[in-house]
């Protein structure tokens, strides 16, 4: 049997819809719990609504590369499987690497093309290698307790600095390679900073509060458009 007819079978679609439904259920349960708690401690409703709008607006642009990855993976795995993998943990590079390893384990490779057993091996390996790491989620409580303990030993000022140091490490690790990563990357980074700064001025001096929720999305779109223009100029 051709593996593509298995990959695009009705059963595959049904199982994938159940899987994605489960992931949405998890998000819905956590969201319900957080909204309930926000109401319980009387958090500002406007702040909650604004968070929801900002999060939704922000998430659109970074999702577009995932759609591109989806288009890349569909010719190899059919439609439902990449749809599922990219809706839960997974990225195009990981999926292709895992699939190639699985294909080689079955005596073929992605370049040579998959057969039905290689496809079966690939979907098991791609899932197994990543899902078992969910067991590590049992450590989240311990990690947060350690952070809380560390903070309680410090005074307010120092504990605020300590958490900010973690943000700063994140920025250094991501921004450092961009600064040393070529002119287009560096310029895109700087344009994004500039656009965010300009929007902050509009929010502050022109009272454009609504812009707050879209500030990062607009900066990203502007910087990405700049990258296209700048690359064309080089």
């Amino acid at each position, binding site marked *: 049997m051709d593996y593509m007819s298995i990959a695009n079978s009705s059963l595959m679609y049904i199982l994938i819809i159940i899987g994605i439904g489960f992931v949405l259920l998890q998000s819905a349960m956590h969201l319900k719990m957080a909204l309930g708690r926000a109401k319980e401690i009387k958090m500002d409703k406007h702040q909650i609504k604004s968070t929801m709008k900002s999060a939704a607006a922000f998430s659109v642009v970074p999702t577009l590369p995932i759609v591109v990855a989806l288009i890349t993976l569909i010719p190899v795995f059919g439609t439902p499987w990449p749809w599922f993998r990219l809706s839960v943990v997974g990225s195009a590079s990981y999926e292709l690497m895992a699939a190639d390893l699985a294909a080689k384990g079955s005596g073929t490779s992605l370049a040579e093309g998959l057969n039905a057993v290689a496809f079966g091996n690939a979907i098991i*390996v791609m899932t197994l290698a990543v899902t078992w790491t969910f067991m590590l989620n049992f450590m989240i409580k311990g990690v947060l307790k350690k952070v809380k303990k560390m903070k309680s030993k410090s005074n307010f000022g120092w504990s605020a600095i300590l958490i900010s140091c973690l943000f700063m490490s994140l920025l*250094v690790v991501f921004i450092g390679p961009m600064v040393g990563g070529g002119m287009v990357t560096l310029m895109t980074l700087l344009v994004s900073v500039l656009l965010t700064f300009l929007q902050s001025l509009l929010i502050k001096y022109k009272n454009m509060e609504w812009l707050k929720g879209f500030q990062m999305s607009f900066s990203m779109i502007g*910087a990405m458009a700049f990258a296209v223009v700048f690359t064309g100029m080089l």
Partner: protein
Amino acid sequence: MNEIKRSFDDYLNATHRLGRTFSVIAIVVMMAIPLTICTVFDIMPSFMMVLSSSIGLMAFLAPATLVELFSYTPMMGAGGSYVAFVTGNVTNLKLPCSLMCTSAAGVEPDSEAGEIISTIAICISSFVTTGIIIVAIILIQPLEPVLNNPVLVPAFANIIPALFGSLGFSMIVGSNVKGLWKAALLPLLAVIIMTLTVGFPSGFEGVFILGLFPVIAAIAKKFYSKGMITVTGLEEYETTEEQAL
């Protein structure tokens, strides 16, 4: 008058219970899909075939996930972390989304308000991503030539600098810790030199975050004692503390 019946710890414990339960169910649900397909279509690979193909990947992913867990959990909080680590796209989507929303709301990520805002942000982000992917599946035919257009390649290749430029600015300017960037200058320079000379090992960001954290914290401690780094809202906090006493 409605009184707050549960403490923050009670809420957190409930979040951990929910997160852990879903983590276990996620393993069962996700593994059931390929196993059902392989059984029904009679394409089950041998145990040895699966083991030999997956062992290297598992060994590679375990430390990477562990490091991400230690680095990102304090920034995303409990509820957000459980959702993010199952739905994926942590560094390019869920973590920045959480940081942007907590920063915009003016709350600390490890406070109760921060925990709630981060959870809401990550859950909404997860819904939006799933929704967009569903729309893309429906519109795959007309979308393919647009998104695969060579003109747009530099845009998608530079999405991370576009994201971190804005995020970095918001986090530095919006933070109540002023001047912390001074403590990051030297480590930043080291990372830039490393990128230019031997190259930065992509995929090891989590390890570097954990490694640089104590270095930046040590420099920050020195600068804080010299008054080069200040924290706003300190007087307000001390007044509240005195009133509480």
